[in-house]
Structures are given as structure tokens and as C-alpha cells.
């Protein structure tokens, strides 16, 4: 495909620079200065508080819950949304498909069907507290990209153990670079008219996050005001393992 331009461009580029052997390039890359913060310094508590604060700054609704309370929390979110038709990724845990609603599970939904959905429920890969960002890697539990784009209302289930403080920590969590990723920091916005930030141009205007405290039963108990004995008596690891998430690897 237009090999002559390819050749001439690469020739010009190569003659403009010193051509180093791959080993030298890798060496040079490894030696690049990286004195920025690679690791956060906050306690887990503070980090999660920050994540919640940043999400709320973006007008996302955040509700904290525990693994035991999760289904109830999901139901509450869906019922108060005023919506009935929800899209769901194929790999979403089936318990999360609360009965009594019109679920469109994506086993090859058409664009028109997704457009007709009023909301969507997904898991996530990671949350980055510093910027209130939710990272989706579009695994089966997170869904195809279009699924979190067309519906106007997005409920995201984010586990506390998935939340990190800084962006570099997210990158170090990726076992390998994802083929697909979407980083969401608040609902879509524009500031193109007189720099007035307007929420929701395209993409979901309403973002709801359920932050599931799955990290320590005691911590969950303290936050929720539940006595530790009863908390411990429930499911020990907190959540069903989600297909396609790091749990499985």
C-alpha cells in the first residue's frame, strides 16, 4: 500500500536521526527519568474517600455498599432511576439482573436495541481516585464499548479493591496493555460555549457508581455500622468472581 511514500518517509526519518540498534533503544528507554509519583501515599480509607469525592464533583451519584448489601443496592438504584429497559453485558453476574425489569443482555444486540435501552449496568476494571476516573477494559462483565455509550444512564459497580490512588498505579495493575480501553471521568461535558461546563453532550448524562467495600470485613463493618460478628458470617471473599476480570487470571 503506497510503498514508495512509506519508503521515502522512513528514509527521510532515518536520515534525520541516528539509527540505533533495538537493544540500544530499549536501553535508552529504560534510562528515561521517571521521578514523578508512581505510588500513592494515602491510606486506603483516604483513597476511597477521594475517589468518592471526585466522582461526586463530576455530579456522579456514588453509593457505598458492602458485598452482602450489593444486590439490594443495585435494586434500589434501578428502582429509583425511573427506568425499565436496561442493557447488560453478557458476562454480568446473573444475580445482578434484578427481576421485574426489562433486561437486554448483549448477546449481539443491534445498535437500535441498545439505543432503545434506557440504562446500562456494568462492572469496571479499575478506579483512579486522583482524577475520579473509571477505567473499563471491556471485558465480558464490562461490555462492548457501545453499551456504555448509547444509554443515557450508566450504573457502574466498582469494587474498593479495584480503586487505586494514582494513574501510574492503574498502569502497573494492567497485566498487559489492554486492546480496548475507555477511561471515564465524569459524564461527557463541553465547555465550548463561553467556557460554561455543560454536562452530557453525547454519552450517558447520568453516571451512578456503587462502591463495594470488599477489602476488609472489619472496615466494611465499621463504615456500615454493622457489628463485625454478623458481617463475618456472610460470604467470606465478598463478591462472586467476575468473568474476565483480574480475579480470574
Amino acid at each position, binding site marked *: *500500500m*503506497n510503498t514508495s*511514500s*512509506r519508503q521515502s*518517509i*522512513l528514509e*527521510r*526519518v532515518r*536520515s*534525520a*536521526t541516528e*539509527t*540505533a540498534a533495538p537493544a540500544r*533503544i530499549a536501553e*535508552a*528507554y529504560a534510562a*528515561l*527519568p521517571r*521521578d*514523578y*509519583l508512581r505510588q500513592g501515599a494515602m491510606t486506603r480509607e483516604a483513597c476511597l474517600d477521594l475517589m468518592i469525592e*471526585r466522582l461526586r464533583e463530576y455530579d456522579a451519584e456514588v453509593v457505598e455498599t458492602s458485598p452482602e448489601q450489593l444486590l439490594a443496592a443495585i435494586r434500589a438504584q434501578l428502582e429509583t432511576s425511573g427506568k425499565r429497559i436496561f442493557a447488560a453485558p453478557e458476562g454480568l453476574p446473573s444475580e445482578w439482573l434484578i427481576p421485574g425489569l426489562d433486561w437486554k443482555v448483549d448477546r*449481539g444486540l443491534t*445498535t*437500535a436495541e441498545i*439505543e432503545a435501552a434506557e440504562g446500562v449496568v456494568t462492572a469496571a476494571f479499575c478506579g483512579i481516585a*486522583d*482524577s*475520579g476516573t473509571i477505567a473499563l477494559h*471491556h471485558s465480558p462483565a464490562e461490555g*462492548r*464499548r*457501545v453499551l456504555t*455509550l448509547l444509554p443515557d444512564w450508566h450504573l457502574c459497580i466498582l469494587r474498593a479493591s479495584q480503586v487505586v490512588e494514582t*494513574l501510574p498505579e492503574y*498502569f502497573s495493575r*494492567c497485566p498487559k*496493555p489492554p*486492546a*480496548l*480501553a*475507555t*477511561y*471515564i*471521568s*465524569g*459524564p*461527557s*461535558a*463541553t*465547555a*465550548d*460555549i*463561553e*467556557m*460554561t461546563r*455543560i454536562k452530557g*453532550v*453525547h*454519552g450517558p448524562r447520568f453516571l451512578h457508581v456503587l462502591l463495594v467495600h470488599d477489602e476488609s470485613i472489619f472496615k466494611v463493618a465499621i463504615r456500615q455500622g454493622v457489628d463485625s460478628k454478623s458481617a463475618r458470617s456472610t460470604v467470606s471473599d465478598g463478591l462472586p468472581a467476575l468473568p474476565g476480570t483480574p480475579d480470574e487470571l
Partner: protein
Amino acid sequence: MSSVVPDRVVLDPRFAPPFPQAALPVLRNPQLRKNVAHAIDVIQGKRGKLVAEKTDWQALRTAASAIRSHALENLGAYLEQFEERCTAAGGIVHWAADAGEARSIILDLVRHENANEVIKIKTMTSAEIQLNPFLEANGVNVFETDLAEIILQLGEEEPSHIVVPALHVNRSQVREIFARRMGLKNLSDDPKELTNAARTYLRQKFLTIPTAIGGANSLIAETGSVAVVESEGNGRMCLTLPRTLITLAGIEKVIPRFQDLEVILQLLARSATGERMNPYTSLWTGVMPGDGPQEFHVVLLDNGRSSILAKPKQRQTLKCIRCAACMNACPVYRQTGGHAYGSVYPGPIGAILTPQLMNMEHAQSLPFASSLCGACYEVCPVKINIPEVLLELRSQVVNQERRQAGRIFDPLYLGLRIANFLFAGAGRFHAAQGLGRIGARLFTRKDGWIHSLPSVGAKWTQTRDLRGLPPQNFHEWWAARRKEAK
């Protein structure tokens, strides 16, 4: 008032008037200056707070500068790696030596789809190659999907900023454009309502037009992935809904690894819009079966970049990540806005990039469109020493102009050459000072000041007085004092 700027704005460096001339109508447009200053103040205010809270800001800049420099130093290898990985993932990579070739490649791809309309994500690179008029002329309807780009497209306007292209337009002007072109008679000028009008206008286009054209913020060599940073969601629409996606990107957009985004993404939104992170960042690799476009093309554009790469003092220009922090900080841009630069790349980066992309054959006034205050360098997330490049380009322009026949009579050239002669020896310098003092008396008024000068001097006295030359200058005073002491 239906028009935002009274004169027709030309953003083609080949035809645009020189900067001092192009700035005049803008300087006389208080509404435009107010719109620009307001937008800049908002961004700068937000940026300032976020930079202050980011304790490793300088370390991030150092890393970003090093990563970008390293990528440019090894551009050939990284470009080939990108091509290989992208192709392995199902993408098709094309190479365009110049704007004309890029336009042809893209038109061919669109025609191959039998498409007569495309949806587009904002990309300055496509404006650089003047893609839209070319496609339109060849029977393809182009629908811009960024709110600012819609405003500009419907209002038949030109962009004035690389991140907030319609920053020179205020809400009532937007209302007027939308009401007229979308046929919405009862539209108010409330930004929320205006944005809603755009959302409705575009929804069907997103859902039905199967061919999209966009750009790239970064091309990742390690994986063959592309990253696009946006706010509105129109990018995500164009990147996932159509059947065919065409991405146009300058060859300098390559970064070595996925991990390098951890540096760039922390700097980009804070610099561009004063946010910790922009609402949506999309990353994709080639073609993903069942998710998004099933045909994906990347058009890699040279268009003068390899020439810039070859020049050691100028190569740093290519580190640019198109954040616009420089123009937000620039006191010149603050007064003139973007149109005066006559290029789709305005402000400090435009002042160095535009003439270089034109191989120094056009836009020669741009390197001089700066007071060299250094604010741009201070804020540049990748540490491009813009003043250094400006100075280098100035000397290239002067070397070009010197060779022109009539130049010897140019008052500024004449004056500087005479000054150089005088500075070469104390005797001549002192003699000239004496003569100058006598000559200045002709222009010095009773109040001891000069109110009006001829020739180049008139440019000073247009708006400023100049104090008359003192009867005894410093070295004379020193000599006299020494004599007295003996």
C-alpha cells in the same frame, strides 16, 4: 450582528496576511478580545489550581519531555513497530508524504465505501491538510461532530484555538448560528439548550453514517494502539458506531509504550482545559471482532515533519502534544486570538510549527509575533523551548530576507546594520551618541520629550512618547567625574 469577525479570515499560511496586519481587525474588535480573554482566564484559573496541587508536576514535565524526545530520536524504529503491531491487529496503515497525498488516500477510502457522507471527530491535522473542502468538492458531505466544530462549520468560521476552537464565539452568537442553520426559531442562548440542540442534531448521524474520520492524540508503538482524548462523547460515537474508521495522524504522534500514557494523560487535561482528566479517553487496537469498526485505517502523515526532525535546534517542535497551554499563557495571543496567525496552529506553537511545515517559504512573520516573554516555555508540558526555536527561525528569516535586492533600504535592516557597525568600536559608538543627541533635538518638544518620530520610530511614537536624549550620557559623566577626582 450576524458575523463574528468583520473581515474574511484566511487560515491558509500561503495566503494569510502577515501577523502585524492580520492582527489589526482583531485588535479593533472588543467583543472578540473579550471572548478570548474570558475563555483564557477560565482555563488558566483552573489550570493554576490543579498544577499547584500536583506536587510532582515538574517531574512529570521532565519525564514527558524525555519520552517525547526519545520517541523522536528513534522515530523510524517506533513508526515501524507501530505499523507492524497495528497491522497484526487488523488495521491497515497508509503513508502520506504530504497533504495532497493524504487527501487522496482518504478520499479513495471513502469512495471505496461508496460513502457520500462521513462523520468526523475534530482533528487539527485534518484542518492542516484542508481535508473538508477537498472532500466536499468531491461530493462527500462532511459532518463535524464536536460542538465547537459544528459552531464553526455552520457559522462558516475558522478555528482560533487548537483545543477550544470556537473560543472567540459567545453564546448569543452561537444561538444565532444554530437558529439560522438548524432552523430552530425559539432557541434561547442558554448554553445548556444550545448543547441539547447539538445533541439532537447529531444523534441520528451517529447512528446511521457508517464511515468516520478522526485523529489521534497518541500512536502507541508497543501495541499498535491509538489513543483519543475528548470531552463530549462524539469521539466515542465516531470510534465505535461506524463500520469504517479512518484515523489521520502526524508521524510525530508516536509514543513508545502504553505505560507512557501515565505521564501524558496527567499533563494533558490539566494543561488543555484545567481538569484533572478529560471526560473520555478511548484506546483501541486495530480491529476488535464484534466491537466497533470492522475496518480500520491509519493514515500516517509527514507533510514536512521529517524535515523538522532533521534539524537539531528545531526538532523539539515535534514534541508537542497539542494541549494549547502555550496559547493560554501567551500575552500576545490573549490580545489577538488565533485568527491573526493565519494558520490552523495559532499561538506560540503555531508561530514555530507553521513556518516550519511550510519549509520557511510562508508565514515568515510568525516567528516575530512574540515578545519572547517565555510564558509558553514555562507552561509547556513537554518543555519545548519555544523562545529558542523562535530565535532560530528569526535568524533563518533574516538570512532569507537579506538576500533580497531591495532589503538594503528597509529602515529596520538599515538601522540594525548601522547599529552593528557602531557597536563594533567605542569611538564610533560615542560619536554616534553625540550626533544622535543633536538630531533628537529636532524632535524633542518643550516638555523634554519626543512625541513623534519618522520612519520606524513612528511605530514607537504611535502610542508612546520617548524621553529626549539627556545632555550628558553615562560614560561622559563617568569620564568627567574621573577627571574631577584627579
